[in-house]
């Protein structure tokens, strides 16, 4: 029984079933919105379907226990398949290239009565044949592309590494986000580091489209801000930097502005706030949120654009009202306080990441490529010619993967070589 299970687990039939199930799961996951709140599924789908989606983990399908299980079985299948095939493969590889190999090689094409086997060897681009004897008669033997025997094995190993590297990376990677504007030093929550945003620019083209987001950052030790731990780097989209064991990415941007709150002409609060930040007004139950920045909210008398800051007022976290403050104006509703937004600027979102296993996944990907190349383009071939007593040659070719195409070429060459 155990032997049967073992055999099934390492079988190609099981591999095909797993591949089909994983394919189906992946496709399904692309149609069901992932990672939404449970209520969302019940609002969007029928109760029965929503219960099925949530109950089976299809709301987070790519991290579900059953997809992980299928992937685990696929890994086991790949591993077993590779382990079981290894001894046979090693034997075949060692034998390949020796005339003894021809005895077990499946015959793809054969022809007798040739005056010389050389044009067939040359036409099939075989290396110089080994000259020996078999059964007391002259034998010429040539083999090539024996590395191709390893194609599927290397490919399976690559896929295995890819899955393992990816899964370990997903389980262990650490990701941190820092949101800020130039001049700020911000703690990287959950680490002993702080990130200084020394500079940040949005480079625009003539047509006002974004060419690049460019940030200058410094990684500090949180306990000792004077100590630059990881050094400084310039980062932009597609050009992350490696600092202090982190890979640091320029992720995305948004609008920010300076919020100033004063009373009787005395500034009480002055800070940079990003879109969406809810800022409490001193010790009052009132808070403000910058909703959006509109560069051409209005026109001045001379026709130049006047910017506006759309904001929302909350009292005890309950929405109270929404309005727009023109540039240079002030926010109403807050008397006796005077508040205003000014100095529109961009904030940047910087991502810091540690993934110690991405190298394994990359190695897996490269091995998969190599394996596919070996399997597809280095087809092991053997050609041997045995001389008959009348002096003519019987030429045989073995190229299981070449099949009919190898046979056609072989027959073409035989036809060209006029038989005696």
């Amino acid at each position, binding site marked *: 029984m155990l032997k049967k299970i073992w055999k099934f687990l390492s079988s190609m039939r099981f*591999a095909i079933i797993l591949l089909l199930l994983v*394919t189906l799961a992946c496709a399904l996951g692309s149609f069901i919105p992932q990672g939404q709140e449970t209520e969302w599924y019940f609002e969007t789908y029928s109760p029965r379907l929503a219960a099925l989606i949530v109950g089976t983990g299809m709301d987070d399908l790519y991290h579900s226990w059953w997809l992980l299980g299928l992937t685990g079985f696929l890994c086991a299948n790949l591993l077993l398949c590779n382990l079981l095939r290894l001894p046979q493969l090693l034997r075949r590889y060692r034998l390949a290239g020796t005339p003894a190999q021809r005895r077990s090689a499946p015959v793809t094409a054969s022809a007798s009565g040739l005056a010389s086997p050389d044009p067939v060897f040359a036409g099939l681009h075989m290396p110089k044949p080994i000259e020996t004897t078999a059964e007391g008669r002259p034998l010429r033997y040539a083999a090539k592309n024996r590395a191709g025997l390893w194609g599927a094995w290397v490919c399976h190993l690559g896929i295995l590494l890819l899955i393992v590297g990816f899964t370990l990376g997903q389980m262990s990677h650490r990701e941190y986000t820092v949101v800020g504007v130039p001049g700020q030093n911000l703690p990287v929550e959950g680490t002993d580091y702080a990130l200084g945003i020394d500079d940040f620019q949005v480079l625009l083209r003539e047509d006002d489209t*974004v060419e690049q987001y460019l940030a200058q950052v410094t990684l500090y030790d949180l306990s000792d801000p004077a100590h630059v731990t990881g050094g400084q780097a310039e980062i932009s989209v*597609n050009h*992350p930097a490696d600092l202090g064991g982190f890979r640091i*990415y320029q992720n995305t941007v948004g609008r920010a502005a300076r919020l100033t709150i004063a009373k009787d002409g005395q500034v009480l609060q002055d800070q940079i706030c990003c879109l969406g930040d809810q800022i409490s007004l001193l010790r009052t139950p009132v808070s403000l949120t910058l909703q959006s920045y509109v560069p051409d909210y209005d026109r001045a008398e001379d026709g130049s654009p006047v910017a506006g800051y759309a904001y929302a007022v909350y009292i005890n976290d309950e929405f109270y009202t929404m309005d727009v403050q023109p540039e240079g104006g002030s926010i109403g509703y807050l008397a006796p306080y005077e508040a205003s937004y000014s100095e529109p600027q961009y904030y940047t979102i910087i991502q810091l990441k540690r993934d110690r296993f991405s190298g394994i996944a990359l190695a897996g990907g490269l091995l998969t490529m190599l394996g596919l190349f070996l399997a597809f383009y280095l087809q092991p071939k053997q050609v041997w010619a045995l001389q008959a007593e009348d002096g003519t040659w019987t030429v045989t070719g073995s190229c299981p993967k070449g099949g009919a*195409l190898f046979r056609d070429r072989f027959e073409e060459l035989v036809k060209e070589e006029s038989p005696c």
Partner: protein
Amino acid sequence: MLKVENTLFTMVMIIYFVSMILYFVFVAAKKEKIGKAAALLQTCGLVLHTAALVCRGIGAGRLPMTNQYEFATSFAWGLSLVGLIFVYKFRFPVLGAFAAPVVFLIIGYAAMQSKEVKGLMPALQSNWLGFHVSTAIIAYGAFGVSFVLGLLFLFRSRMTEGSFWAQHVPEKEKLDLIGYRSVCLGLLFLTFTILTGAIWAERAWGSYWSWDPKETWSLVTWLIYAVYLHLRIRRGWRGRAAAIFAVVGFVCVIFTYIGVNTFLPGIHSYA
């Protein structure tokens, strides 16, 4: 330069259309010379198509592979190229008769897209773009050819021996083998596409795999062709089952390319 590209593109469409008609006439009239003329005309079309892409690249100041129009015309170019290679390599003009309509449909789809040249968004400004997209073009082209071969395989048994079809369409074993070669080429390049895409995504988005619908469907396509390869190895499954998977695989390719953008937008929504 973009005006030249526009003119060349129109010429290419006309040439592909005429070559498709010639292929049809070749099949209907059963005259080999017409088949050869169709292949020759398609070759001329491919040369002009190459020139059009070069002009587009020079005019835009970058590789012409960054929006729906550019990818569609490049996809048609890849399919035309791979199709012609197989037509000449395996002396198989009937393949052209089946591949030409697919090429024409894709270039027709390209013609319906906006040809406007825009500056690249920051995420697309990467040297990986060229590797990622050009390998996808070859992969998709090869899968297109395997799709045609899969269809031919499925209809091969209905072709009576000695008929024009039977004379011009290789026997099943050979069709299966040529289809296999085509899938091999496609799968190798698709793997390269996914790999370069992952490396690029890691640099641009901070994650080499995000289960974005385009990524997911590339994986689905890859898995379908992996099943195809395993089916061919299993005794008794070679041939018909493999041919069905080659056809299903190309449906996935088309869904990955057009369907995902239409129905499942994600971070690849520009592609």
